[in-house]
């Protein structure tokens, strides 16, 4: 049965492509988008209405912040607004007139930064760059004036900042989000191609009851037949997963800080669950084109439900609940725990139980459908077979 399936696969190059070259290619394209890692030097504009040595110094200090780069100097606010509207930059820094004079006189002048939150990531990143640079600039200005009045640098630093905060970005000290997104994207791509490939392959057999019967006979019973049908694709999917992971942890340098057996087991359960999902869809719908539409329509939006870009805890009840129908949801969370986060094994066990439960439920549904099809086939198939036998005599 297994051998028949392998030969059958080789005759369908598109199916082989779909489960091997295509996921790797999609992953490489996606990975190249994030290849640079942290977005730095995002363009912003500045409107310096003061144009004094003090304001120019502040502008220089902000330009030196790693997240942003001042690319444009605008003449007035309208000019600056146009630039944001046409997308030349995502933020505008406004230093008001008489800034230095007011600062010296103790009138606490205001620096304003306008940023585009419609382009959320780019806008927030520029805002982060400015807001992390400005307070330290204010402190520097303050400390400079105190040092001028005879304090040492250390004394000045303590005097202006009696409470210091150390910030630690847990699991991601470099604040590089490409790790998390890539770790999830591999899973989403594999989920899509594995589900589609299995669905396609099963649907081609399920189109006619005759083919299903042949499969069962060849396999000698439902369970061996199913295993023979699904395993070749499982092996291909495992290889693809291994290739993508080698690229991720080897070439892209993702951290691998977890328990190996747990990761491998979880990956296997995930891939088998994807196959069962595809197979169930195929048996429900029977004919390949609509079955593939159903799978694509259901699985494609899964990325949003995973809670990678937006945490699952903050979603509405429907989304938290619906997220469970994707094999990827729990797998991604276990994978992130066991690679980037380096979580203890017992924290991940609950997630693994979710995965196993999912696997068991889809497996059971698949089995029940197969049994029902066999019963129906037996009921309707008895007569034609009898006639055929009669004719042969």
């Amino acid at each position, binding site marked *: 049965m297994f051998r028949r399936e392998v030969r059958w696969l080789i005759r369908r190059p*598109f199916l082989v492509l779909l489960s091997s070259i*295509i996921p790797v290619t999609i992953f490489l*394209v996606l990975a*190249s*988008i994030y290849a*640079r890692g*942290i*977005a730095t030097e*995002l*363009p912003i504009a500045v409107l310096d209405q003061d144009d004094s040595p003090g304001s120019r110094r502040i502008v220089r200090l902000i330009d030196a912040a790693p997240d942003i780069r001042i690319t444009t100097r605008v003449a007035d606010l309208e000019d600056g607004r146009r630039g*944001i*509207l*046409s*997308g030349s930059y995502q933020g505008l820094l406004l230093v008001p007139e008489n*800034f230095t004079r007011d600062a010296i006189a*103790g009138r*606490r002048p*205001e*620096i304003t*930064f306008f*940023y*585009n939150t*419609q382009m*959320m*990531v780019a*806008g927030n990143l520029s*805002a982060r760059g400015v*807001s992390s640079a400005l307070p330290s600039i*204010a402190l520097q*200005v*303050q400390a400079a004036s105190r040092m001028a009045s005879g304090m040492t640098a250390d004394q000045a*630093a303590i*005097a202006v900042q*009696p*409470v*210091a905060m*150390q*910030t*630690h*970005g*847990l699991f*991601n000290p470099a604040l590089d989000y490409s790790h998390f*997104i890539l770790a999830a994207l591999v899973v989403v791509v594999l989920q899509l*191609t594995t589900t589609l490939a299995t669905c*396609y392959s099963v649907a081609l057999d399920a189109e006619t009851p005759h083919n299903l019967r042949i499969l069962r006979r060849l396999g000698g019973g439902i369970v061996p037949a199913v295993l023979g049908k699904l395993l070749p694709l499982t092996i291909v999917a495992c290889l693809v997963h291994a290739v993508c992971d080698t690229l991720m942890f080897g070439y892209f340098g993702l951290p691998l800080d977890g328990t190996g057996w747990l990761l491998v087991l979880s990956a296997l359960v995930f891939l088998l669950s994807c196959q069962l999902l595809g197979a169930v869809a195929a048996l429900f719908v029977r004919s390949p*084109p*609509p079955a*593939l539409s159903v799978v*694509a329509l259901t699985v*494609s939006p899964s990325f*949003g*439900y995973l*809670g990678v*870009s*937006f945490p699952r805890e903050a979603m*509405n009840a429907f*989304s938290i609940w619906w997220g469970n129908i994707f094999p990827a949801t729990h797998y991604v969370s276990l994978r*992130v725990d066991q690679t*980037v*986060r380096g979580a203890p094994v017992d924290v991940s066990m609950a997630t693994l139980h979710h995965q196993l439960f999912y696997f068991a439920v889809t497996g059971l549904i698949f089995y029940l459908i197969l049994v029902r099809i066999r019963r129906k086939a037996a009921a309707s198939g008895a007569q034609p077979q009898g006639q055929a036998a009669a004719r042969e005599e």
Partner: protein
Amino acid sequence: MTTLLSVVRDEMDKVVTNRRIFAIFFVAIAVLGLYYPQPYSAEVLREVAVAVVDRDDTTSSRQLTRDVDVSQNAHVVMKLPDVASAERAVFERRISGYLFIPQHFEREMLSGRQAEVAFYGDASYFLIFSKLRSAVGAAIQRLGTNVVVGRLIAGGMNPDEALAVASPMRINMIPLFNPEGGYASYVVPAVFLLIVQQLLLMGVGLLNTLPSERPRVDAPPIVATAGKLIAYMIPGVFLYLVATIIIPYAYNVPRIGDVWSSLAIAIPFSLAASALGLLFAAILRDALVVQLVCSLLGLPLFFMAGIAWPSEAMPELLQWARHLIPSTSGIDAAVRINQMGADLSDVAGPVRVLWILAAGYASLAALAMRLSAGRAAKHIDGIPHPTSKGDLP
């Protein structure tokens, strides 16, 4: 001219009579409209859960805890005795970070030395980490400023002057266009234009590959292409209007743009996407393959659109190549007009790209149609063209 009209009529007829195509063009968007934005509909992320490990337990440390708690971005959900239990809570995703206040914090701070606190934030999520860090940072800044002002007043300065010295300038961060900072307002308008493109690619691709939908009008390739594209403007503009007016309305996404300017994007956008669909059909030639390719393209196109990741941070080659896809310029122009209130003159660049793509893909599709027509004729003559298989990609 009459041939052109009959091609248009024939094509419109197919769109309405083929149930599958009709479903793709007119029904799928409603299903996706209900299903896709759910994870993002919580919109604004507030009150991120945080813990405090307070080893000092003094008036100042409790004040700091309260300050963090009252900020609208953070909520102190637990006080924990040590760092180990806080780490555990982060692993279990019960909190997104914790603030460690060491022993003798108040004593250090009041004795004129620099007191230190440490903030550990789960940096797996960009949004959560930045919100939490700014909430904790602001609370600490406030505490520090109060201490400095207190000292200066004690030293004989008047309160206003003391504040001006302690905090010489004010910083005002103003978000533009998406004032709530909502995640849905950011994702939904962009994603649905991508979905429009996917549906057009799939619908047009299938219409021109399904064996049941062979052209019933004999027209030269250029006329046929033009006629088809005119006919596809109906589903194209319809889908665009649903995506830019009805869906944002349903999800409370602000829309401030002018409808006529928006329509000026709808036309080149739907032409470019439909022309690309015709080209797909001409190259792939098989309905099932068209369907699979479209399903697989969704994910990479989404990430190339520059929604999830600023395009400025992508590799150079990709920054250029992504403009070959209609959605890149389409999303850019439409979001600027609809959500940011830009004028057509602000988006002249992306609109020009859309027209160029429409013309380019239409000519390529007409060329491919002519080549395959020539081949078909030769097949009929009984002389199979030697390269008829070789030029398949």
